[in-house]
């Protein structure tokens, strides 16, 4: 039954192809159109402020990213971003092949950004307020979170809905030692497509609704298990070794909600993330770590473009952001570390000289539940995007 269905659809596909002639649909485009070049960069000055001790400021070309996209034909495109981080570290941030079947169905494979929250996918400095990315998007969503995988994406035009659905490689929880920790949660487990090991495939999905002008809502979900080096080479009937390897695996479910709204010069955004981790008790005992069993955090941000009424593409946006994030929201078998229950406040201003060029300045206050004091930091930054 299934086979005949496959045969029939193959025949339909092939016959339609021939009726239309060989790719008459394909309008060959100018060579200059085939290659797109873009990029973004973030140059920061961070100065911790303390009344008690001297502290170095830090000046850093935090990121410099070159984007290349090459279109082979109307349907097939390759996109990559090469990133220099802190000048000397080179990463591939994205590298995927996209095949557009139609508007609502694209096949995509390669090194993909995990669609979770706002900043992991939209991380160009001209798209967000503040010199640094929100800390929620570092501690809980380990931006820039990307892994090798494949799946489908597309937009349903009538519904103003975009979806992404990918099967991807997951975090590495163990490789000669534990990779995940209480303070940074999953961040140390990112494999980034660099000789990554695969033991358990993970599923990542996101829906974005943009049907109300000015508003964009996102719902992200991620589920799977972490990867471990310990299964490699174990005989398939060795239960003791398998049980040991099992102890180094964490089950992970993460949810994200995000919203962006802009109207009459006002810009608002917010994001909430919740993650539930299984087997942390065994993992912590096995790897000597303090990984929490629940992660939770959110931020809300508001800004206003003072040049909104002027007829200029420039923007001058003061903003304030409030963040709460806790990588020990819940723990299993260990004591909660209150220092991981953090509150960050950021207030500053950005001057967009053009849509893709911005100067930023802000002050940040970092606090946590283990102390009454906030540490302070001044940030100045240059952001570009083209």
């Amino acid at each position, binding site marked *: 039954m299934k086979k005949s269905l496959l045969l029939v659809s193959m025949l339909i596909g092939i016959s339609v192809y021939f009726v239309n002639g060989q790719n008459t*649909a394909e309008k060959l485009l100018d060579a200059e159109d085939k290659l797109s070049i873009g990029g973004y960069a973030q140059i920061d000055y961070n100065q911790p402020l303390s009344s008690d001790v001297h502290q170095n400021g830090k000046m850093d070309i935090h990121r410099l990213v070159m984007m290349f996209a090459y279109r082979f034909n109307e349907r097939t495109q390759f996109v990559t971003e090469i990133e220099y981080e802190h000048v000397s570290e080179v990463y591939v941030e994205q590298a995927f092949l996209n095949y557009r079947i139609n508007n609502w169905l694209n096949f995509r494979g390669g090194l993909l950004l995990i669609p979770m929250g706002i900043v992991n996918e939209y991380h160009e400095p001209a798209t967000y307020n503040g010199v640094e990315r929100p800390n929620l998007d570092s501690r809980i969503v380990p931006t820039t979170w990307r892994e090798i995988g494949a799946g489908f994406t597309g937009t349903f035009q009538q519904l103003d809905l975009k979806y992404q659905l990918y099967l991807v490689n997951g975090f590495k929880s163990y490789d000669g030692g534990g990779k995940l920790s209480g303070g940074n949660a999953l961040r140390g487990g990112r494999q980034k497509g660099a000789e990554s090991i695969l033991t358990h495939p993970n599923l990542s999905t996101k829906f974005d609704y943009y049907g109300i002008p000015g508003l964009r809502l996102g719902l992200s979900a991620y589920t799977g298990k972490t990867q471990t080096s310990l299964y490699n080479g174990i005989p398939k009937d060795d239960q003791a070794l398998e049980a040991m390897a099992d102890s180094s695996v964490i089950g992970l479910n993460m949810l994200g909600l995000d919203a962006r709204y802009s109207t009459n010069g006002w810009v608002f955004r917010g994001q909430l993330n919740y993650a539930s981790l299984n087997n942390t008790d065994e993992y912590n005992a096995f790897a000597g770590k303090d990984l929490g069993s629940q992660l939770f955090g959110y931020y809300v941000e508001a800004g206003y473009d003072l040049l909104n009424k002027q007829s200029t593409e420039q923007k001058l946006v003061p903003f304030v952001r409030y963040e709460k994030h806790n990588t020990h929201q819940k723990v299993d078998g260990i004591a909660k570390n209150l220092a991981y229950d953090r509150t960050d406040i950021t207030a500053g201003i950005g001057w967009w000289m053009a849509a893709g060029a911005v100067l930023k300045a802000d002050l940040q206050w970092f606090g946590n539940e283990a102390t009454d004091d906030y540490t302070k930091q001044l940030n100045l930054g240059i952001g570009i995007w083209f």
Partner: protein
Amino acid sequence: MVLRKIFIAVACLLLISTGQAQLFGAGAEDAASKRLIKLLSKELDADRSEFALEKLDEHCLQSELIEDVSRVYRDQKASGFVVSAKGKGRNDHFNYLIYFNEDREVELVKVISYYSDHGGEIASKRWLQQFVGYDGGELDYGDEVQAISGATLSAGSIVVGIREITILLQDCNL
């Protein structure tokens, strides 16, 4: 077994949709105007036979943004202009059309082909609706035009395009 079923289902889906895409894809050079007429008649809810196009190649309409411009005739009566234009998103170019009435005010904007998946949100009908009636005045992205998160470059590009093309068309002595 389950995997095999999933594979078969996906393969069917791929094959059918590829076939459809071929069937409804753009034609060769002379089919381009047929396609425009088809789009216009569909969007304006009218019969295809009512429309005729006459290609214009006046110097005053030369622009990097414009692919071509046609005079639109409806029931043999001049009834506006249709412009095929090109914009640039984050990863790639895209094509859109603007239909102007006889007063050279925007009647309709439609994104025809968006190759990259990034920024495809600008094809939203509700978002494009806000350009209807535009006649060449102020048009700043984020001010007069509602911003669309996640599609900043594409949206910025189409806003600049619509403004420049409208002004070009209005200043052109046709």
